[in-house]
């Protein structure tokens, strides 16, 4: 639409000054066409040579440098990342090993302690058993001795009783036998 509008303006400009281009559109005045063409070609050629030989290679260099730098930086960053991951893995394994060792040591010391406790317990139990046996022996001895003394006492009591009641002395051996016989029957009840 713009070109149409400009075209109309151009047509109008041409029509109003038909064949008198100098007054209407200076663009259609051929006086300086050669000059413009000449200077355009000259200026543009110089511009082209300068741009293509000096400036574009420089800018391209700059851009390439930047790209390479970014690429290099990214690569080294990746490398560092891999390194740190490897280190992390190493650290993890070390930590795991340490944990295993700790549990092992714990188990071992627990076992040793258990063994110690067990042996000491056994020792003490044995001692207690011995003491018990000793005490039992003492008790039975005491019983026996008390039994024999009870027999003697009962013999004395019996002979005394018989002497007091009947007034005569029985021989001691028969009393002893009788007491023995009775006490055997009676003492069994109490023992």
């Amino acid at each position, binding site marked *: 639409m713009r070109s149409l509008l400009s075209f109309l*303006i151009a047509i109008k400009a041409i029509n109003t000054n038909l064949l008198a281009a100098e007054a209407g559109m200076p663009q259609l*005045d051929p006086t300086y066409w*050669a000059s413009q063409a000449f*200077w355009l070609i000259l*200026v543009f050629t110089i511009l082209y040579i300068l741009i293509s030989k000096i*400036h574009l290679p420089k800018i391209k260099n700059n851009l390439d440098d930047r790209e390479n730098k970014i690429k290099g930086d990214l690569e080294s960053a990746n490398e560092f990342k891999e390194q740190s991951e490897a280190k992390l893995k190493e650290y993890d394994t070390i930590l795991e090993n340490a944990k295993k060792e700790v549990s092992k040591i714990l188990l071992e010391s627990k076992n040793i302690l258990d063994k110690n406790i067990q042996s000491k317990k056994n020792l003490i139990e044995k001692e207690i058993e011995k003491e018990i046996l000793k005490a039992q022996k003492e008790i039975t001895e005491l019983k026996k001795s008390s039994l024999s003394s009870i027999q003697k006492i009962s013999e004395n009591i019996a002979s005394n009783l018989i002497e007091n009641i009947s007034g005569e002395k029985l021989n001691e051996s028969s009393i002893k036998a009788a007491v023995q016989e009775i006490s055997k029957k009676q003492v069994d009840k109490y023992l």
Partner: protein
Amino acid sequence: MQQFTVHKIGPEIKIAGLDLSFTNASLFMVISASIIILFLFLGSKEKRIVPGKIQLIAELFYSFVAKMISDTAGSKAKPYFPFIFSLFMFVLFCNMVGMLPYSFTVTSHIIVTLIMALFIFVAVTIIGFFKHGIKYLSIFVPSGVPVVLLPLITIIEIISYLSRPVSLSVRLFANMMAGHTMLKVFGGFVVSLGILGGWLPLGFSVALTGLEILVAFLQAYVFAILTCIYLNDALNLHH
């Protein structure tokens, strides 16, 4: 129309009967080219990893044109990158310099744009014949067209091919001239309507200036991308 007049600066230079005098048009060509050179010099002077402002803009131009070429004409067009870059920069800076008040718009002259377009046309045609020989003529015979329509289509294709330099040059010239003429017309309205009624055309002038800057960029881009497309036709036969 005074802004489009070409006048001589300095002595008259005549070579082989042609008047090659230095004119204001030549002056503004030199100015535009100098600005480009200065800008690119500043933009590529320092090799910084993190670019400065000018370096960033220069590199943006570089990658912009490089992407444009690789998108439209593929990797085969790489050797022509400096030419298209120069062309784009030259047209863009001529357009932009022309936006300054009291300056001269080089690209608003049909002879300038026509010479550029003719050069591109001739160069592209030579490249086409050089790369593909006589087979380059098959560009006029599109594939997959019914035989009945083929003569007609071929004639249309030939006409469209031959009118390429005209359309390319007139597009740029007419856009630039129309824009500047419009600015001038609205500027004239501001003066003639005075302090009472001149505010509306003044607003239009401001808006149009913005539009013209856009057009200046756009037309440079269009000029360069059409060159790329023509080059693509010549390099990669049968699109």
